[in-house]
């Protein structure tokens, strides 16, 4: 059934594309563009890092997007293949097929898309259909999306569809409406003014058939709501260098596997305040999320079928040891505060030196909610106090100094302190307290040759193999990220197109593992090829606070991307 559907879809899409092409010849325009990605992996067993033999020997993911555009009309097709899915990607992805197709008409006042589409209302707290190929995450809506801009400054959106779930579509029906008014475009006299204001509101409703779910109380079955609504209001105000953004969202009763089938309504608030001028900026963000996991299928417990998106507000670290214990958003409940300051010491000042110095400080703290249990499935679940924090989930402070030492040498030095609650991502043990130091030095040898050195240290009070009592059972901590670590990396970019890098991460105390990596790459225009050999630690790959568990691997990897 599925196979036949796919074939019909493919043929239809092809006919549409062919039709469009032939019409384009008549109209004398239009063009085709696209991109292709191919990733592959060979991995062998290694008991120290926890990797296992891959039965297929070679795993590969591939993807090609083809886009046809002719004036206001565009049509696209995406072919995905997972033969078989690479480590960390769900086995349900196995296969090849057309994963996405659409036809779209876009004019200044009106846009219509039929087929698969991506959309976001405000910050996405009630609706965000998006994809991230590295997370193996795609919750595109398949249906219809209409956007109207009746007058300058006013945007109205309507969407209806079902969400992608691997090669299938979830049975839940998602409908949404959103409106936004930007006063600076609407009111002529405000154009170019120092003051700016945008307000918006959205509503999303999900419909799902009834099913049998038992209540906590024996003999009772839940009376499930078939329609679940969520709404939000938002604003963005600014004056000169100051700006303030806020969004408040509320969700109706939505018992699901994510909240253990409780009937408590959900709510979320996000506030951001910023001041910035040339060479200085400061920004504070706060959020409170309570029972806001919103999926189009109530029994889906994995990473798919999310209708909304609750962004993490911690900084997205990129250095290996700073991102070893990444923070994942807890849509079921959390509170957080984040602050960020950037300052540029001017050239010619004592701290600025000849080239100027950049200072960047960031800090975040995330806690759970302070809750009192009322009951299990079929009840209100819990009560929570609005301004009272629960358990500490995550905290960090990072100080980064970037300085050009000469016309050819640049140094970035970073110090980070992190507190991490291992239970948040399914591990055991006490809070980890980590200190991280990173030195990143770039030396431009000449016009076509650049060397980069990176040295990192992580000191932690966590220990691999330490024993803890979990539910009355003595359990060993098998989180391979624990312990004290050292890392070195040398990267050489030559002839402006090639690069080779060698790195090693070594647990020198209380930890386990020695992760070496060699990689060779080639960049030309919009084409990039990379081949690597080495060991990859098991861990979480996080993008935007959404994470994917990646198992350890030991062997060869390659990746090719190109756009045309």
């Amino acid at each position, binding site marked *: 059934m599925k196979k036949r559907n796919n074939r019909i879809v*493919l043929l239809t899409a*092809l006919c549409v594309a062919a039709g469009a092409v032939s019409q384009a010849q008549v109209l004398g325009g239009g063009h085709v563009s696209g991109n292709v990605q191919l990733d592959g992996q060979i991995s062998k067993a290694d008991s120290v890092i926890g990797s296992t033999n891959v039965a297929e020997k070679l795993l590969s993911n591939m993807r090609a997007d083809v886009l046809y555009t002719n004036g206001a009309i565009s049509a696209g097709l995406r072919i995905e293949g997972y033969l078989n899915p690479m480590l960390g990607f769900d086995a349900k992805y196995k296969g090849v097929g057309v994963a996405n197709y659409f036809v779209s008409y876009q004019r200044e006042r009106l846009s219509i898309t039929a087929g698969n589409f991506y959309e*976001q209302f405000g910050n996405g707290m009630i609706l965000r259909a998006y994809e991230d190929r590295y997370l193996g995450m795609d919750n595109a809506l398949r249906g219809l999306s209409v956007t109207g801009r009746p007058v300058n400054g006013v945007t109205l959106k309507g969407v209806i569809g079902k969400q992608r779930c691997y090669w299938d579509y979830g049975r839940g029906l998602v409908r949404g409406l959103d409106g936004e008014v930007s006063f600076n475009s609407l009111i002529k006299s405000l154009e170019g003014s120092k003051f700016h204001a945008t307000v918006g509101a959205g509503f999303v409703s999900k419909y799902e058939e009834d099913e049998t779910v038992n209540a906590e109380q024996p003999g009772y079955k839940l009376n499930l709501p078939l329609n679940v609504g969520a709404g939000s209001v938002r604003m963005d105000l600014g004056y000169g260098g100051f700006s303030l953004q806020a969004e408040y969202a509320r969700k109706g009763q939505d018992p699901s596997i994510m909240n253990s089938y409780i009937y408590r309504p959900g709510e979320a608030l996000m506030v951001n305040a*910023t001041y910035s001028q040339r*060479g*200085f900026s400061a920004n504070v963000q706060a959020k409170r999320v309570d029972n806001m996991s919103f999926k189009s299928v109530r029994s889906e417990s994995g990473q798919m079928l999310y209708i909304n998106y609750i962004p993490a507000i911690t900084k997205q670290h990129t250095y290996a040891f700073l991102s070893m214990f990444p923070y994942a958003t807890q849509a079921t409940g959390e509170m957080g505060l984040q602050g960020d300051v950037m300052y540029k010491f001017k050239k010619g000042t004592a701290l600025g030196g000849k080239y100027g110095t950049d200072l960047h400080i960031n800090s975040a703290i995330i806690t759970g909610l302070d809750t009192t249990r009322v009951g299990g499935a079929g009840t209100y679940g819990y009560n929570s106090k609005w301004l009272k924090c629960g358990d500490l989930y995550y905290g960090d402070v990072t100080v980064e100094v970037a300085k050009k030492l000469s016309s050819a040498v640049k140094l970035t030095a970073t110090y980070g302190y992190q507190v991490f609650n291992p239970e948040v991502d399914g591990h055991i043990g006490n809070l980890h307290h980590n200190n991280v130091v990173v030195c990143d030095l770039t030396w431009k040898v000449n016009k076509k040759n650049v060397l980069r050195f990176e040295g990192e240290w992580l000191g932690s009070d966590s220990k691999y193999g330490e024993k803890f009592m979990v539910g009355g059972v003595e359990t060993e901590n098998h989180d391979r990220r624990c312990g004290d670590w050292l890392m070195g990396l040398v990267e050489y970019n030559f002839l402006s197109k090639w690069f080779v890098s060698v790195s090693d991460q070594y647990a020198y105390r209380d930890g386990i593992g020695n992760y070496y990596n060699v990689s060779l790459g080639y960049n030309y225009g919009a084409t990039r090829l990379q081949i690597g050999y080495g060991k990859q630690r098991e861990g979480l790959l996080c993008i935007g606070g959404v994470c994917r568990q990646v198992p350890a691997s030991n062997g060869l990897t390659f990746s090719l991307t190109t756009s045309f």
Partner: protein
Amino acid sequence: MKRILLTLVCLALAGIATAQNTVPQNVTIKAMDGTSVQTSVIQNDGKPIIISFWATWCKPCNRELNAIKEVYENWQKETGVKLVAVSIDDARSATRVKPHADGNEWDYEIYLDQNQDFKRAMNVVNVPHTFVVNGKGEIVWQHTSYVDGQEEELYEVVKKVAAGEPIEEAAE
């Protein structure tokens, strides 16, 4: 088998495209004051435009935009080029785009592409991905990734475009 064949047909279709790729005009992005605008606002009076896709968390993107900052005034004087920096930051860090750009003293025209519509329309897979667009809105050169010093290569292209000379390393 049939599928593979169809895939090949699709790729062949792509191959026969002869028309020069232009920057799509009707994709919605957000300006720094929170207003939604169409990509047709990306204009530079017939002079070259650099469109750079970046994100606050992307180290090479920041290195590239910071390196260009040092020479941007000269580039503008000599060629009239304008750099348009399109951030793909999502709700997690989108509010930090303006303070990030101000803190780094960037004088670029900056837009937010939170829903990644523009990114998809331009076939951007990874950031940084930089395009050079000529006065007619045609994409004449593109490049992904950044290594220190590569901004000089980019400027060679911009100078040629400003002078109306052909680019050997055409858009692939």
